Structure formats: C-alpha cells, structure tokens
C-alpha cells in the first residue's frame, strides 16, 4: 500500500531521497538484478501502476546500458485482486501490459515504489498467477518503509526507511509528477 496521493502542493514534508540518490539507487538495483539473475536472461520487469511502471522502464533502460541487453518490461494492474476493495468506492483500473510471449517460465521482477503492508504485492502475486506460471518471482522496490502485515519481503530495495505508521511516504517521479524526489511527512495514514 503505497502512500502516493496526487494532491501534494505545499506541506510536502522532508525529502529523504533526491533525484541523484534515486538515480544511484536504481543503478544499484539494476546491477543487483543482473547479478542475481545470471545476466538478466529470461527476465521480465513488471511495474505495478502507477509509479512502479516508470521505475520498471528506468531499470530496463539501465540494464540495457550496462549489458546491451533488452529486457522486456510491462505493467501489472492489481486493482481487481486487492483485498480492500470493499473498504472504499470502486476505483479506476490501471493498465496491464504484458510483453509478447507472456510470463510462462520467465523470471518476473515486480517493481513498485513503496513497500508497506505488503498487500499490494500479495494482490500482484494473485494477478500474476492468473496470467501464467513464471519460473520465479522477485520484488524490487524503491523504498521499504516497514510495517508489513503479510509475510512478504523485497529482493531489491532502494532505501530502507524506518517510519511510524502515522507518517506518509510519497514517491514522486518525473514521468508522473514532474520531478524525482521521495518525501516523508506527518499527515496520518492516507492510502
């Protein structure tokens, strides 16, 4: 459950990662993916909308730069698989885009901006099961803020961020929000 509301404006909170630090974190994660998947063979990067998708694209671009390897990249919407659908009004769906060839037998790296309760990732695993049978599934997140409610952990973490549950972590990316920054603020649990 990522706390990434769209109405930011003034009381932004404290910047914990700036554009340069985000860039470095993604570069490191790209290297780690290459290491842990034996050179990125059969890897597909699947971003979870909204902000997981541009992150997955950036990782794919990095891997392309380092190894000259074209890693397929797509998006996986988890809305219809969430366990909190009935707690709020029905929401608009995100896009699911799979690379041609599907996910069967591939190494899937799920990409999201913030790892929090783990419920989004649980939904993503369910959604993925309906799409095929990958060989392995891994998880990459830009920020891990703790407070897991399910037995889920990330394989690649940009930054571990100890937070209180009353704080809001907001990831902003230039593709979506016009700038790259990770903010932490005291606004109560919004998402």
């Amino acid at each position, binding site marked *: 459950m990522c706390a990434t509301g769209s109405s930011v404006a003034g009381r932004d909170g404290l910047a914990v990662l700036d554009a340069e630090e985000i860039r470095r974190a993604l570069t490191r994660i790209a290297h780690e993916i290459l290491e842990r998947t034996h050179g990125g063979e059969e890897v597909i990067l699947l971003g979870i909308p909204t902000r997981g998708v541009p992150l997955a694209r950036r990782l794919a671009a990095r891997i392309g730069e380092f190894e000259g390897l074209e890693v397929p990249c797509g998006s996986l919407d988890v809305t219809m*698989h969430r366990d909190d*659908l009935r707690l*709020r*009004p*029905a929401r*608009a*769906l*995100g*896009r699911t885009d799979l690379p041609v060839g599907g996910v069967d037998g591939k190494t899937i790296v799920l990409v999201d901006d913030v790892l929090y309760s783990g419920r989004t990732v649980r939904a993503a695993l*369910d959604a993925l099961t309906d799409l095929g049978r990958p060989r392995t599934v891994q998880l990459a997140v830009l920020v891990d803020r703790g407070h897991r409610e399910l037995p889920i952990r990330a394989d690649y973490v940009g930054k571990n961020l100890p937070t209180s549950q009353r704080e809001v972590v907001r990831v902003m990316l230039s593709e979506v929000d016009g700038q790259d920054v990770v903010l932490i603020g005291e606004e109560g649990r919004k998402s």
Partner: protein
Amino acid sequence: MKRHLISAADLSRADALLILDTAEELASLADRPIKKLPTLRGRTVVNLFFEDSTRTRISFEAAAKRLSADVINFSAKGSSVAKGESLKDTALTLEAMGSDAVVIRHSASGAAHRLAGWVQGSVVNAGDGTHEHPTQALLDAFTIRRRLRGSSTRGAGLDGIRVTIVGDVLHSRVARSNVLLLSTLGAEVTLAAPPTLLPLAVENWPCAVSYDLDRELPKSDVVMMLRVQQERMNAAYFPSVREYSRRYGLDAARMARLPDHAIVMHPGPMNRGVEIAADVADSVRSTIVEQVANGVTTRMAVLYLLLGGTEFPAVAQ
C-alpha cells in the same frame, strides 16, 4: 455514479468515460488463459427477466461470472409470476435470498425505476418497455470508440462523431438511451425515421431529426439500424414491410454511399431483409458480432463499478 443504473441520463460524461475506460482495461481479459477475476466473489447478482432475451441475459450472466459473482437467473415463465405474483413481491423475495444487485428486464416502462425504490441493492436496467436500455448504449459507445478511435483511447469522448440512428425510434429503448449517452459523450446524433415511428416531443431530445435516410448517409460516421418491433406494433405505422424496407432499410447500394471509414451497427436481434440486408449485416463494416463481445466487457465494467467498492460507491471523483 449513482447506486443504480436506470437511465443513460443518470450518467455524467465523467461517469460514462470511467465505464468505457474500465471496459477497455477489462477487454484484455478475453485474451488471457484464465478469463476470470476474483473481484465480486461472494456477491450475488439476480437476473430478473420478465421479457424474452438472449444476448442481454447471457451477456449479464457471463459478465457477473467472469467477476466471480454468483448468478441467479429468473425468468417470468415457469415462476410464481404466472400465478399472479406482483413485481414488488417477486423483488422482495429475491432480496430476502440475499441479492446484491438486480438486473431487470420488463415490458413496462419505468419498472426498473420502481424496483430501485423497493430493494436495498443496486438495480441495473436491462430494458424497460419502450423507455431505456442503458447498458446497450454503453456497449454501443464502447464499440464506436474502439472502431473509430482505436484501442488506446483512455479518457477520450466521441466528440464530433456523427451517428445516424435509423428506423423504429418510437418503440426503441435502445434509441433513447443511445441519444442520451452519445450526446453526453459529444457525438452528433441524427434520427432518421418515418414520421409515424418517431415519438412525441422528439424535438426536445438532444439530437436532429430527418425523414430522409439517403440524405444523411454520406455524412454519417456510424449508422445504427433499429429493429422494427412488430410485437409492439398494434397499429399500421407504415403501409407495408416492403415499402419500409425500400425507404429505410440498409442494403448494399445504400451502404456504398457511406464514407469509407463508416461502420454499421445493429443492437440485435435483426430482421434480415427488413431493416438490414443480409450482405450488409455480414460485411466487414458491420460491428454486430463485435457489439455482442463488447457487451460482456461493458457489463463487467458496470457491475464492477456498482458492486466492486463500498456499499454506496461514489465513483466519480
């Protein structure tokens, strides 16, 4: 979006676009190995059909099942309605069995509206008399948008698209819902029909009216043929079927007068040889089979948006 879907007029432009965009995302489900989503697990949808229907009932049933809802089908034939049970009592019985949504088709205009006042769950109008059929209008709008605007059209309306609706407007709930919805989405709608088959006060509808189909064809992007509803006709609305067919039927010669990109639609069931010629119905420009497929997707979107969230969803933000 409101709790019920009774009339296409209940939908704001934002609501209608949300439904179309949701349907667009759900359309990819048809290509997947598992054509099912767990979203409405544990919810019950009742199909309450007092009038005969093939595609609408099966379409709603398929839509509800693909979202994992439980479906109870009810048709008036062979039920206690035959013993004289009223609509209200039937509805309350179904409600007591725990339905979360009722999809109703009834021969009386306004039946869905009355039902909405009696039951707790959502009511979806699947055609009430000669009044409205909003999900048909939604699937038609979805089909038009996909065909003429392509499939990556999130948030796009139908602005500037010229739609000509031809034939038995008087008895057609499809025509009324389509005029309301398509004009909400920005399309320019023209009704082409004999004066006897146009409803009273049609000049207050948000559309133009013409008696001459041939004049409208060259400037139409979409031609929507309506079924001549013989079963609702208790008077002579036109001299003969043959004369109707010659003046308002769509045959190959008339289709040739359409612009190259134009599409031909029909809500079904068709009277081949009356309002539409067989070779037109089977041509590549005809979207009739596509409309059926899109019907399932669009109805999934409607059921998801009505039932997927909290009990009283306020969808449009």
